């Protein structure tokens, strides 16, 4: 019976939810480190397979083996689908061997659905499965419950895509403390290890997205000056370039191919790309309609295929420099991030754009997760030295008369950012006003991304033009919009009803949580184990602390019994039976009552002796 004094500090992990692979990291004693997956790897391929007849999905490297074999049941690169509608993707659907459909109500502007076998999922749900696996991996590695996380997104993700990521985290049972931008996270890990001052450009080419961010590092503050990018450009597109080359060289038609053949072709293209990061030549072999097609791909031909795609990053880089108000020559570092930056052609193009030799010293696959872990450590209050100041990537505005975009918060404004706008009524006794919010850089709202409709309700009935409602648009530190409205006459807050254009309503999220694709039973079971371990921990610690004095205080026989009870509890805590853990804990507790009493008595005796000594003096 020892008093519990220690507080169990809950870990906050950093997660890189990537297009091709994902990983989780945390900070131990100030140093960020990658946590191994349950497969014993550092990376988790972002692949989810629903094998036929199986109730549970498989993920990671295991699922990767299904990518060709069970192409119809295996989802990958779903990050490219986050926050998108079927309508958005109709020209791209051939890039995905799995089937994409509109929601069951046939609304093609609703979130796209992924059909795996006889079940359909949103990209949010698939992402939630990946996050859940990472969470379980972290829990296994750390031996305690993990409920809080920082998740990274491409800097150029819009509000819907950020919301989708946050919802996925929620479905995976995570409290997402912060959404941070991938290049910013990378800069944290880069700057941390080098204590840099200076102006750095982070060129982040991932599996499906491209970001460029310009940052100023000064006195531990990481200040993002500007960011630009392309959420539909990444390593996957280099694979597609190989596929198109292969298809045209062999006079094939991708329309005529089966889903399995397309999956095999994607796989072959990926392998060829990887081989070409080390060798000067490779061959692409695919079996189509019973014929084996084989084609040699040289590095120089591959580079020619890639260059036009990579040249698309140039404009983004130039805009980012212009928005930051700096010249190329002022940059101190060009940092490359993301798997495809291993390719010599990518390093070459990036170097040409910025007229300097890129720094390839960071681990292109891991640096983002490590940065997310550092941000998690900052949020936990463990790191007072560093501070991240980020920006909103896209201009945010509202629709005004004639479908014109009226910008309220220009791109590259520092977040959190606020803008206020006054609204009034157009007809007498009007009680509601609709506000349609868009994100993008074009003058016409129709060419920008619809973000949400906000309905101001409960306006006091009055003649037209009399009510004055001040609406505040606030982009928070996650880059996500919050809208509040206030009646300027009465000072009363107005109700604001939100209809996201591309997202799940709160009710849908609740339903998904309740239906538990994400398997709540095993969650609960795991939580019981963790709780039992946490309960047993203090008594185990306290007993071990006093074990040295046990022989003297309670005799060797009793001390041996305590030692074996300690060992039993340790074994139980390594296993996963909460009942057994509690039994052993209670056993140890009973066994140590007399020891605890003796320790306490001795402590008191010492204290009173000390008091007497003091009195004598």
């Amino acid at each position, binding site marked *: 019976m020892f008093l519990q004094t220690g507080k169990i500090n809950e870990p906050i992990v950093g997660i890189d939810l990537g297009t091709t692979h994902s990983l989780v990291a945390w900070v131990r004693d100030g140093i960020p480190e990658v946590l191994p997956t349950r497969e014993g790897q550092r990376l988790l391929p972002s692949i989810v397979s629903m094998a036929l007849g199986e109730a549970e999905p498989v993920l990671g490297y295991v699922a990767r083996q299904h990518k060709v074999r069970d192409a119809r049941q295996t989802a990958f690169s779903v990050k490219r689908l986050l926050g998108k509608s079927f309508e958005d993707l109709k020209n791209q659907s051939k890039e995905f061997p799995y089937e994409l459909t509109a929601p069951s109500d046939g609304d093609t502007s609703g979130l796209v659905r992924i059909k795996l076998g006889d079940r359909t999922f949103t990209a949010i749900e698939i992402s939630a499965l990946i996050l859940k696996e990472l969470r379980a991996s972290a829990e296994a590695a750390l031996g305690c419950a993990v409920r809080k996380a920082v998740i990274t997104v491409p800097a150029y993700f819009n509000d819907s895509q950020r919301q989708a990521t946050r919802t996925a985290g929620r479905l995976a049972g995570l409290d997402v403390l912060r959404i941070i931008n991938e290049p910013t996270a990378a800069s944290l890990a880069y700057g941390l290890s080098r204590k840099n001052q200076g102006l750095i450009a982070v060129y982040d080419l991932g599996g499906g997205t491209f970001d460029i961010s310009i940052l100023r590092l000064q006195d531990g*503050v990481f200040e993002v000056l500007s960011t630009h990018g392309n959420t539909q450009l990444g390593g996957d597109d280099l694979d597609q370039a190989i596929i198109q080359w292969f298809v045209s060289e062999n006079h094939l038609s991708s329309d005529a191919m089966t889903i399995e053949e397309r999956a095999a072709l994607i796989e072959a293209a990926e392998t060829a790309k990887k081989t070409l990061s080390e060798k000067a030549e490779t061959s692409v072999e695919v079996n189509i309609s019973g014929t084996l097609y084989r084609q040699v791909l040289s590095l120089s031909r591959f580079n020619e295929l890639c260059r036009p795609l990579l040249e698309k990053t140039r404009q983004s880089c130039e805009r980012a420099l212009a928005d930051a108000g700096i010249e190329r020559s002022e940059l101190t570092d060009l940092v490359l991030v993301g798997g495809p930056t291993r390719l010599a052609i990518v390093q070459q193009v990036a170097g040409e754009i910025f007229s300097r030799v890129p720094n390839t010293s960071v681990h292109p696959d891991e640096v983002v997760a490590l940065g997310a872990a550092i941000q998690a450590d900052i949020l936990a209050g463990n790191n007072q030295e560093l501070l991240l100041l980020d920006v909103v990537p896209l201009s945010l505005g509202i629709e005004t008369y004639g479908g014109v975009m009226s910008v309220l918060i220009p791109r590259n404004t520092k977040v959190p950012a606020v803008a206020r706008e006054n609204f009034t009524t157009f007809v007498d006794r009007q009680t509601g006003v609709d506000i349609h919010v868009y994100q993008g850089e074009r003058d016409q709202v129709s060419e920008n991304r619809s973000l949400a409709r906000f309905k101001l309700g409960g306006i006091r009935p009055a003649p037209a033009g009399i009510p004055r409602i001040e609406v505040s648009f606030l982009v928070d530190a996650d880059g996500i919009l919050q809208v509040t409205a206030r009646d300027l006459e009465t000072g009363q807050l107005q109700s604001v009803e939100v209809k996201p254009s591309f997202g799940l309503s709160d009710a849908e999220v609740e339903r998904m949580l309740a239906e538990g694709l994400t398997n709540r039973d095993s969650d609960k079971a795991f939580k019981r184990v963790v709780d039992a371990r946490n309960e047993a921990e203090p008594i185990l610690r306290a007993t071990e602390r006093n074990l040295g004095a046990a022989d003297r205080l309670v005799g060797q026989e009793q001390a041996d019994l305590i030692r074996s009870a300690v060992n039993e509890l340790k074994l139980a805590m390594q296993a996963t039976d909460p009942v057994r853990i509690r039994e052993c804990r209670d056993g140890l507790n009973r066994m140590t009552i007399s020891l605890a009493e003796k320790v306490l008595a001795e402590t008191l005796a010492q204290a009173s002796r000390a008091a007497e000594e003091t009195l004598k003096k």
Partner: protein
Amino acid sequence: MKGALAPHLCQGCGLPQPLGKSPRDRDPFVVFQVPRRFHQDLPQLQRRFFELSRGLHPDRFASAADDVRQASLERMSLLNEAFQLLRSRPQILEFLLAESGLAGAGAPPRAQCSDLELAEEWFEVQEQVLDSDESQAAVSVLVAFSSKLTEAIQAATEALASGQDSFDRAGGDLVAERGALEQLGRVTSRATTLKSMARDVERLKARLKLG
């Protein structure tokens, strides 16, 4: 407690306080505690921005109570807004004019003789160009007017700069500051009219393919 942060934090608990209702609480010069002037010391502004950010940013209060997090969010977004404003003289001007009631609704009418003359001339030029079937003579009239307009805009820009200088020289003398602002208000309004006229000129030039 550190000097610059003091007005933003509770003296007792050191946490960010909710913004008050007074306009002073939202005044960018008060937020940054820098002198009320157009010419700001930019390196000092940047250092102050970092110092204040460290004490107010939501990342510092991730696990605090809801009201503290809300106050941090409000204060930090206000800080970002003020930082942007103080680095831009046109934005400082807009703020000072609005604050003194010299811009927006309630601003005094200020038709300017020079504007009126230019406006009348512009109507004549347009008529000439359109009636004359875009003849060579009409084109040269347009070009001449255009360069006259450019000069007027240049003069207005210089007047804006010197008005800002004299505001800063007033150094807190309220009467002198008010005088400088009234002058600046008139120049701003003239500059706006001239620039909108210049856009019309460019449009007409484009129609005549004068580049």
